[in-house]
């Protein structure tokens, strides 16, 4: 399956339509809450679906997947931070905030990958889904740690000792960690998975028309809107600068390759599952992490991380990344 074929999946085409709609400056205005509603539906539906399957899956393998998800969530932002500091284009606080996004994941990209695999008739395991649910929180925690450490370094550089006032106080720390663990998307996704796993199968069947049959259509509409948002952010890439844009293209490749390694060697998944773990590594959060960073790292400029995650990395993954990681998975596994 070539990249061109990928472009003929309705979900990807709707993403492209959204980008075009904004580029030709159409006056189409979507209700501001539509994307939020669609994403609530999508999280609920994949959660239920995945939980239903995980309820029937191997517990040991599931724990293994969770452990590796946590490892990825901790490692990737550190690598991102390192890369960003090498570019010398952003200060420490912005680097910390951006890096957190790349340690986390984008459900929209993940679902596009599922549409891609479905379309190509490739099977995939349920474990990557639980990794999706788990990966938000560690990345947020690392982001907060990096930001706090940077804040102290800056205070020292500024000639004084790290004053208590510069880092979050103890009480704030608790509230920020709380924020990471009770993030809305995480709760909804893990909650739906739990419900899918423990509900009586007969009662789950009544939910399938809602969570399965209309799923692809809702995803198309969601990607259409996200295409419009991506294009809005894309326009700001000049403010962000070429070097940062390059980071937004290189970092997903790094994450994707690491994801393939984890999916294949550490978890022993097939081509479909390995592709999905690659997508988890490669994608950057634009829903769950940004609000957490706005609250915890006010010194960072939201245009930077939103433009990179939503305007650069997201379109790259949807159009080029997914088929690429799939090809890599095929290469590695065969």
């Amino acid at each position, binding site marked *: 399956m070539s990249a061109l074929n990928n472009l003929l999946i309705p979900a990807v085409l709707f993403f492209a339509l959204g980008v075009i709609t904004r580029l030709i400056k159409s006056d189409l205005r979507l209700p501001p809450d539509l994307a939020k509603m669609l994403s609530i539906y999508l999280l609920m539906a994949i959660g239920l679906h995945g939980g239903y399957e995980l309820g029937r899956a191997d517990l040991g393998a599931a724990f293994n997947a969770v452990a590796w998800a946590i490892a990825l969530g901790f490692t990737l932002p550190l690598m991102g931070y390192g890369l960003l500091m090498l570019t010398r284009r952003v200060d420490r606080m912005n680097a910390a905030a951006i890096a957190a996004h790349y340690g986390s994941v984008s459900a929209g990209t993940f679902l596009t990958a599922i549409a891609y695999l479905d379309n190509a008739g490739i099977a995939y395991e349920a474990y990557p889904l639980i990794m999706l649910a788990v990966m938000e929180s560690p990345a947020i925690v690392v982001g907060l740690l990096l930001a706090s450490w940077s804040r102290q370094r800056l205070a020292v550089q500024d000639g004084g000792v790290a004053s208590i006032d510069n880092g979050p106080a103890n009480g704030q720390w608790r509230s920020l960690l709380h924020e990471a663990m009770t993030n809305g998307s995480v709760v909804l996704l893990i909650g739906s998975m739990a419900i899918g796993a423990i509900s009586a199968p007969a009662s789950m069947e009544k939910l399938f028309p809602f969570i399965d049959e209309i799923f692809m259509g809702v995803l198309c509409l969601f990607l259409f809107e996200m295409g419009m948002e991506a294009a809005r952010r894309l326009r700001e890439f000049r403010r962000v600068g070429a070097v940062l844009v390059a980071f937004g293209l290189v970092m997903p490749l790094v994450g994707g390759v690491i994801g393939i390694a984890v999916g294949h060697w550490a978890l022993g998944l097939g081509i479909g599952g390995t592709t999905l773990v690659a997508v988890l590594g490669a994608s950057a959060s634009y829903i769950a992490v940004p609000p957490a960073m706005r609250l915890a790292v006010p010194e960072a*400029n939201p245009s930077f991380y939103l433009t990179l995650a939503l305007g650069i990395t997201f379109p790259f993954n949807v159009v080029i990344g997914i088929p690429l990681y799939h090809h890599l998975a095929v290469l590695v596994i065969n």
Partner: protein
Amino acid sequence: MHRLVPEKLVTIISTDVLEERLVAIARNRGASGYTILRARGAGSSGEQSGMLDADANIKFHVILPTDRLAGVLDDLERLMSKRYPLTVFVSDVAVLGSDKFDKPMG
């Protein structure tokens, strides 16, 4: 004649992730209530289109007796000094009726 009482109206425009902090400030500083409206906008931290969770603004109003104004402004200045994006302004309003705005929230 109508009993129009002079009070201070503090208006804050900011990102909606700060909502809980602003509510806490109003509550701790003895306001009798507050009002929140959804907003969009642009400023030094870029465009806030309101389409994502992280890029929505709110417009937050608190009406206060003049003697409670300083405390609220102190707290807001502290937030601003931490680099939170806040637009804050104070206006004089004539409030209809009673001492309603003197009673702190429960």
